């Protein structure tokens, strides 16, 4: 199992009488791209603010790189974040915005800033004032700022907001690249599961301040793939029947459910064969739950 670099324990944030985050326990492994997904107001941004050190939890705690409590100060510098809108000095150029943060981190050298600008596709507009940037350009500069100092954990709150389709692809590729090449762990939030599904390796689904489900990309893919879902009383016998029918791509997911990923147009035949072998089939149907419907079912009021 990979090293856990972030773990929250019953993390809560209350504003007045309203709990924005209501006791979440999430785990992020090193090198993962952890997608935090939820509707607007689900508590994603508040959670990221607390992890990014911008906001203090009302109660609960979290461990970062094995440190917690007062020791967190030692590892704070290894976390970088882009929360909500990118924070930029409008009257300063992209280069100067980056230079200011580089100075704060003790990083010298124009080459470093040049490479960052290149990485986010702003090399040509480095001398342009940030106030003249489009929303997409601001977002890219925000990501470049978050990359200063090569953090071990990158916290990104809806980083693709405002980007054009081409920009979304570029940022997505860039995140995958930095995660793989530099081993940076990324915690990224979005309310669009479709977009997250193209980069994330792990997911946490939030609703009303709570973490309702955590799953890996494989588990999500399994849940949302086209398959025959059969609920049977004797899964072992059912497996023997399926083997006899030449079906190999299936999986017994729990005590009663079998997911069959092939022969999707032979539901009636499979049902008949199972019944003939003495397997009681209480439900059999093709499940084509999309990412969207999966998300909606988990976050329904």
């Amino acid at each position: 199992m990979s090293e856990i670099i972030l773990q929250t324990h019953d993390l809560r944030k209350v504003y007045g009488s309203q709990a924005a985050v209501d006791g979440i326990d999430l785990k992020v492994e090193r090198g993962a791209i952890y997608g935090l997904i939820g509707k607007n107001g689900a508590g994603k941004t508040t959670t990221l603010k607390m992890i990014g050190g911008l906001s203090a939890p009302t109660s609960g705690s979290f461990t970062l790189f094995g440190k917690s409590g007062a020791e967190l100060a030692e590892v704070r510098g290894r976390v970088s974040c882009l929360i909500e809108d990118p924070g930029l000095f409008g009257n300063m150029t992209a280069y100067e915005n980056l230079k200011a943060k580089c100075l704060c981190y003790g990083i010298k050298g124009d080459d470093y800033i040049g490479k960052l600008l290149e990485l986010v596709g702003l090399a040509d507009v480095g001398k342009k004032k940030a106030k003249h940037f489009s929303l997409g350009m601001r977002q890219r500069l925000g990501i470049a700022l978050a990359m200063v100092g090569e953090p071990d954990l990158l916290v990104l709150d809806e980083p693709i907001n405002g980007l054009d389709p081409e920009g979304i692809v570029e940022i997505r590729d860039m995140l995958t690249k930095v995660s793989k090449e530099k081993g940076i762990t990324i915690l990224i939030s979005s309310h669009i599961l479709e977009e997250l599904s193209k980069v994330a390796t792990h997911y946490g689904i939030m609703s009303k301040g709570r973490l309702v489900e955590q799953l890996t990309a494989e588990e999500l893919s399994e849940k949302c793939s086209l398959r025959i879902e059969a609920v049977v009383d004797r899964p072992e016998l059912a497996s023997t029947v399926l083997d006899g029918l030449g079906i190999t791509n299936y999986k017994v997911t729990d005590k009663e459910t079998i997911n069959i990923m092939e022969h999707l147009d032979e539901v009636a035949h499979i049902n008949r064969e199972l019944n003939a072998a003495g397997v009681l089939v209480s439900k059999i149907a093709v499940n084509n739950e999309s990412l969207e419907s999966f998300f909606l079912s988990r976050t329904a009021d």
Partner: protein
Amino acid sequence: MLNMIRMELYRMVRMKSFWVILIIVGVINVITVSLNDVIKNSPELQQAVEAAESEKDNPMANIGMSITMERNEDGSYGFLEIICSAAQGMLCALFIGIFTVIFATADFNSGYIKNYGGAVKHRWQVVFAKGTAVLAYTVMFFVLFIASSCLGVFIGGHKVVMDPAGKIFEVLCIQGLLHVVFGWVIMSLCLIVRNNLISMIVACCISMHVFTALYTLADKGLKKLGWKSAEISNYTVSGRIMRYGLDSSKILCSTLVVAAAFAVVSLALGSLCVTKKDLV
């Protein structure tokens, strides 16, 4: 910490307001000082002086700024007179206050604080880095102010007579210190209320003696309670700025105590606020 100070200094000199305020102050100072004779003899000013004289017996409080640069008998100006007239008139404090408000709140208003605020080891460092930048600005402001005043005197056809070096050092250091502390008080206010407008109004009100009425009211209350010589403004940084002039050596120690007290309290409160409050 040193890196953060570097960042604050970098962004300070990259701010438009930094240059705008310095240039405006410099130019206006050269013009007003060089035209001192003309202004002094202008009928409008004479009327204003007469009006002010007649108001002296009026129970209404006078607010606003009054800067008088007295000339020596031979027509020259004393170096300390140049410094003290503007400093005691709260002109320097006004501009330092205005810049401090703009500077101290810029990263909170723009959201830039989110880029580094969460990663700093100790948040109080944010306040101390800003405080260092305010100190640097105050020094630059004084240098520019003195230089532009001297230039104005020369343009006006007069001479600047140097005072004893020890006295110049003392007054410059004390007035500089008081102005830095004034900047820190305004900076901490900005970090506590996180509101440009309120902070700016307070900075201007202090510089324009608007709080005089409040101080007087408090003095009256304290006198009724038995403290017969109560004078609150004597224990404020702005009060000391107005009092500390050419012959103020006897209040040197008490002025240092007032400055130190305000510095410690304002920096501590600012640090506490930045540490305890969410950054965004």
